[in-house]
């Protein structure tokens, strides 16, 4: 099965999971059938249920959704303000 390329964007303290020079952004190649849930496992995100996940700027609540080539996947811990 061919691989696909996605862009992972991690924010706030989740950035500690990537080397600091990446500023939380990394293009990674993954297997075609991977889901959001698999990706979070791969990156090392533990408290999945409290994260905010957006694919191409749209919030996702179902982490069983498969990722597609070129997706921009943003993952935030609980943040807020105003």
């Amino acid at each position: 099965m061919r691989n696909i390329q996605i862009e992972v964007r991690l924010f706030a303290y989740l950035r500690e999971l990537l080397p600091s020079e990446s500023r939380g952004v990394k293009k990674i190649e993954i297997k075609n059938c991977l889901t959001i849930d698999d990706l979070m496992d791969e990156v090392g995100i533990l408290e999945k249920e409290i994260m905010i996940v957006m694919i191409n700027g749209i919030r996702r609540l179902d982490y069983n959704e498969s990722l597609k080539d070129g997706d921009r996947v943003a993952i935030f811990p609980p943040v807020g303000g105003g």
Partner: protein
Amino acid sequence: MKICRIDMSTKSISFEEVKEEYVGLGGRGLTSRIISDEVDATSHPLGKNNKLVIAPGLFAGTLAPSSGRLSVGTKSPLTGGIKESNAGGTAAQSLAKLGYKAVIIENKPKNQELNLIKITPEGITIEDASYLKMKGNYEVGNILREKHGEKVTVMSLGQAGEMRLTAASIAVTDPEGRPTRHCGRGGTGAVLGSKGIKAIVIDPGKENKVEYHNIDNFRAAARNFSKSVLAHPVSGQGLPAYGTAVLVNILNEAGGLPTDNFREGRFEFAENISGETMFETIEKRKGQTTHACHPGCIMRCSQVYNDKKGDYLTGGFEYETIWAFGSHCHIKDLDSIAKMDKMCDDFGVDTIDTGVAVGVAMEGGYLEFGDDKGAIKLLEEIGKGSPIGRIIGNGAAFTGQAFGTERVPVVKRQALPAYDPRSVKGQGVTYATTPMGADHTAGYAVTSNILGVGGVVDPLKKDGQVELSRNLQIATAVLDSLGFCIFVAFPILDDETAFPEVANMINSKYNTNFDINEILAGGQEVLKLEKAFNQRAGITKAQDRLPEFFKEEAVAPHNVTFDFTDEELDKTLEF
């Protein structure tokens, strides 16, 4: 508790007992009620018939966490409607400790004067303050603390308030005495300036006159409520660590970070001005990533931002400010934005309306988008009181007129804050319909639209947005009346035990027996009063609208417009 009335034409001061019908009111509930009861809605906002009411919330000075917000109410010279402008800092707690439920400033001197109001345990005096003429808030604070003691709270005007510009704020000092907290919106500083007042010094003394009907019950409820605030991931962890600036990246990802005067929903340099970058910069320069804007705040979302040399540059450096001078103006240098934040605090202007005005001046061709040095120079003109400085200091709507551009993001002449109404639609409904003019805090739909707090409402669709905005506007009117920071809404929306504890606190302090529905009905009453005042002032449904370009131009990356019908918007506050 007492209400004080200061007549600035005769310089007389009088005290009155709190009327029966005002006993259950505080903060915004009280300021809006007094303005509504005592000010003819057709009065000129800078004339003798307008009043300025300063009121701590119902919980100010108590053991309730994060309850030190101050309300200032008046008829706004910016919107022409009723205004409640809300600030942190130490003024609300100081006034409550002295036993003041409200201070009403009325009438005005015949000639142009500058006075200082001094409020101490011994009473209230009015003194000449001509020695402070055209000084900025930082210098005013330093002079007044030297004269009146290090511990006093200072509320003051910079140059903008003295010139009675419509974006003029009233600065309130934080616990370190810095003028970083402001009643920013709606030009309340211009009204105080029109009354001939440059500053108010409050010395709370040692005694705390706050009384409780049943302090043990209050303490228990406050403790439980604090636990809810601290247990919520946003108010307990997110806000203390990163402050509000963490929103730059989340709004950018969501396509809701207005860029280049609301042309785009994402900014290519968002990372440069993000909360994450700010956090690292503050740590590197040994500032403070976490700071409480008033004692007893347990969320501590404020911060101290140092310059490259490690010296204090600014504090209370919020997301909306970073956005207004940042992506809105296509400026990517966080130090330049911090400098502009400091200048706004010093001259005493609203960072939102002023930042949006600078972007509108860019739109009008006065300077290029992205020109941070030009923007700083332009802001300096406010402090000088030059004609161009006065234009910018009058806010975005006035600046748009001065430069003959139609692309002016305002509602009721007040500038839109940092969330694109097309891609965060619930926020758009609030901008359009709140009696305050475009205001994000009046019904912060970003919660369910973006942050996943209080349920989920799709930010790109219309479904559920009107109801969401309505409920949040009602709840906010309650929080603003209690003197709570709006961020306690996060736990209230997600933890069903939190709001009943608010009811317990009200009942144990005031010997009442309100349930949640009755408390929310109080919030509705505040909005009804405010709407009615605006109607008497000539503000009709026709002003409950966003500028046309939001309906006509789709914003990238989601290519959405603001597609609510007028009838849908009109249902928001129909009660």
